[in-house]
């Protein structure tokens, strides 16, 4: 009796079970969700946050998981992830300061090769930024997502008070320093936060496409050269003239300096306008203006990239997402609007959004000016030891500015120290 009962039940259940299994299988095949992990850092992660709902419409089968760490922590975490080959994201955000180290490590996919063939899009992207994502060996490992064309932001009200015009600031470095003296005398404000900024721009200007800032193609340091000599001299002249506040960027003094009208100009990436209006000096609305860098210099500050680690789990989906973030005009503009990330996609640079006046900058159409700058920036070669050289050069410049070290000796010392520290 018992056994027959059981068989009856199974017989009855069979089609039901089968049906359920079919339904489950069907549901599974309809949703084959790929979970795409994206690792990023603030505020660059805002672009991914903005992209998630838009991307969901195009690719409902892809679930995007964003992990975000503070700027320094993110790049440290990515270094360790690449080292051990575990916990790697599918899409990795990389800031330009770390690009040399990551790209030349060999731990990232070559996006120039099949199946990606990323270099076919080269003409669509701001031309100076593609070489930044390439290593010395020509591996295109990181796709540019935004750029930071350099600009000179200045306080029009303070300059007017001192009788200094924009042209006085931008004509030459000498006239920039002279104007600084006038501003200091008339308003008590420093013209710039730190004389180091002048050196930073000077060593980047006058370079041709393919040249590096600190190293030549063979990896020989270029520090003991007239370019650095002049950069150091100009920084020293600004310090001697007493027109810099000796304030490090991003320190408390720096933001307080803007809030208390103590700093009259700042050279940085165009994205600084967003920082100024959001938190650095929201009260100074309408008083700031943007201009091109002095002495016809064009340089870029920052810039962010996306890369795919060689050991990533979903490379195809990752590449689709990266293309969406970097080559989709709407997405690029969305990032421009939401986090002031200047688009690397040329198509997005000619949108009507660029013609809108910026209220914070007194109604200036500054974005057009930044585009002019973006077009003129040279494609500077990146070296993985750039951060080391930067560290050494800044330490030596400190000695020149603070302890009156002779510039020639400082540069020779820096050259030697860099050689030693990279041990090639």
């Amino acid at each position, binding site marked *: 009796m018992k056994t027959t009962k059981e068989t009856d039940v199974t017989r009855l259940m069979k089609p039901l079970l089968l049906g359920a299994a079919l339904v489950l299988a069907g549901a599974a095949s309809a949703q084959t969700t790929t979970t795409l992990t994206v690792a990023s850092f603030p505020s660059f992660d805002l672009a991914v946050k903005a992209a998630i709902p838009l991307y969901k419409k195009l690719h409902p089968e892809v679930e995007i998981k964003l992990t975000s760490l*503070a*700027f*320094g922590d993110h790049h*440290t975490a*990515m*270094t*360790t992830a*690449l*080292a*051990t*080959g575990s916990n790697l994201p599918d899409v990795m955000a990389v800031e330009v300061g770390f690009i040399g*180290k*990551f790209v030349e*490590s*060999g*731990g990232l996919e070559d996006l120039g090769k099949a199946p990606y063939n990323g270099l076919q899009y080269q003409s669509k992207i701001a031309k100076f930024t593609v070489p930044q994502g390439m290593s010395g060996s020509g591996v295109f490992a990181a796709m540019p997502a935004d750029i930071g064309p350099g600009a000179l932001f200045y306080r029009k009200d303070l300059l007017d008070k001192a009788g200094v015009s924009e042209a006085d600031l931008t004509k030459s470095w000498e006239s920039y320093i002279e104007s600084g003296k006038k501003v200091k005398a008339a308003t008590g404000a420093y013209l710039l936060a730190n004389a180091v900024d002048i050196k930073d721009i000077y060593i980047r200007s006058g370079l041709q496409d393919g040249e590096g800032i600190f190293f030549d193609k063979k990896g020989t340091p270029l520090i003991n050269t007239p370019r650095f000599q002049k950069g150091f001299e100009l920084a020293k002249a600004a310090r001697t003239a007493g027109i810099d*506040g*000796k*304030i*490090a*960027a*991003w*320190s*408390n*003094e*720096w933001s*307080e*300096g803007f809030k208390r009208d*103590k700093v009259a100009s700042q050279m940085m990436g165009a994205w600084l306008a967003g920082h100024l209006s959001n938190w650095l000096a929201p009260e100074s609305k309408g008083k700031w203006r943007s201009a091109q860098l002095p002495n016809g210099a064009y340089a870029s500050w920052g810039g962010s990239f996306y890369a795919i680690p060689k050991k990533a789990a979903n490379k195809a989906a990752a590449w689709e997402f990266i293309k969406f973030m970097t080559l989709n005009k709407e997405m690029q503009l969305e990032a421009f609007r939401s986090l002031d990330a200047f688009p690397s996609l040329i198509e997005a640079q000619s949108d009507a959004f660029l013609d809108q006046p910026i209220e914070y900058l007194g109604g200036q159409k500054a974005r057009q000016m930044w585009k002019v700058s973006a077009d003129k920036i040279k494609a500077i070669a990146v070296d*993985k*030891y750039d*951060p*080391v050289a930067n*560290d050494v050069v800044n*330490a030596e410049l*400190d*000695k020149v500015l*603070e*302890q009156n070290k002779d510039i020639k000796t400082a540069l020779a010392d820096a050259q030697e*120290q860099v050689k*030693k*520290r*990279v*041990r090639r």
Partner: protein
Amino acid sequence: MQAMSEPPLTTAPPVVPASAARKRRRSFRDVAPYVFISPFFILFLVFGLFPLLFSIWMSFHRWEPAAGLEAMQWVGLENYLYVLTNDDGFRKSLYNTVWMAVVSGVPQHLVALPLAFFLHTAFGRWRNAVVGAYFLPFITSTVAISLVFTSLFSRDYGVINAALTGMSHVPVLGWIFPSQNIDWAQPAYIKWMVSSVVWWRYVGFNTVLYLSAIQTIPKDLFEAATMDGAKAWQQFRYVTLPMLKPMVFFAVTLTIIGNLQLFEEPFILTSGGSPTGGNGGIDQAGKTAAMHMYTTAFVDNDFGTASSIAWLLFMVIALVTWANNRLLGEKKA
């Protein structure tokens, strides 16, 4: 049929299963302690022993971490030789470390000892609250403390400079104080600044150590001293201090180890707002050996050399601790 095939539980002799059960119970008892203690050993193996051994292994290699584990290259002692003979940063940072360890460490104990004695004798029921107040800096996050001190020491807007320049307007006393804001990030001041923060942070911890040791000194020693007419100072000098010697040894050892590994305080105090942390400020005057190790690993991207710095630093600490042991430790009869 089915009922028949069931094992005759009730009729079977109870000896076999009972002994098996006891055996099982006993064997579980045998294993239990190891199970309970295993979390520590597992965690220690994963997070303690393995990194330790791996860093020794790493220190004999050139390794660019972002290229993956395959990229390790055996170089023998090259990293150690480089650090010892050619690495100016290591020498300078080691000097800074020792300088700050002494300047922040010695006053810690010179203040903590009498302070503990004072707290022991002068406070009744409020003692714990006062001790708690002194101990508070020790349990506060180093990062939070360093950030607060960064604003206190701020050149243009800091409270310390405001107080100092404010005092310069006071008649008569004014001439001691500067009328200009002091730039604490200058090489001449930065070690003092870091040391003062470290001193402030650990003085309470040492006070607690000494206080707990003072409390274990038998009361009759003090009573006898009082009977003999010893004043408070004499009691401190001839009763408290000798009885505290083992604790002094312990506390000084902790200070040596902690101060030679100094990292967070100078890292943040000298960062000047940099998102990737500080490098010791102008002329790297505030750079400690641990910071040099960090820079070598995460700026220079040279994990092998960084590991060898770590082991050299360990040897220095071991040596100094040994010397301290010879100086203050219990002499074997």
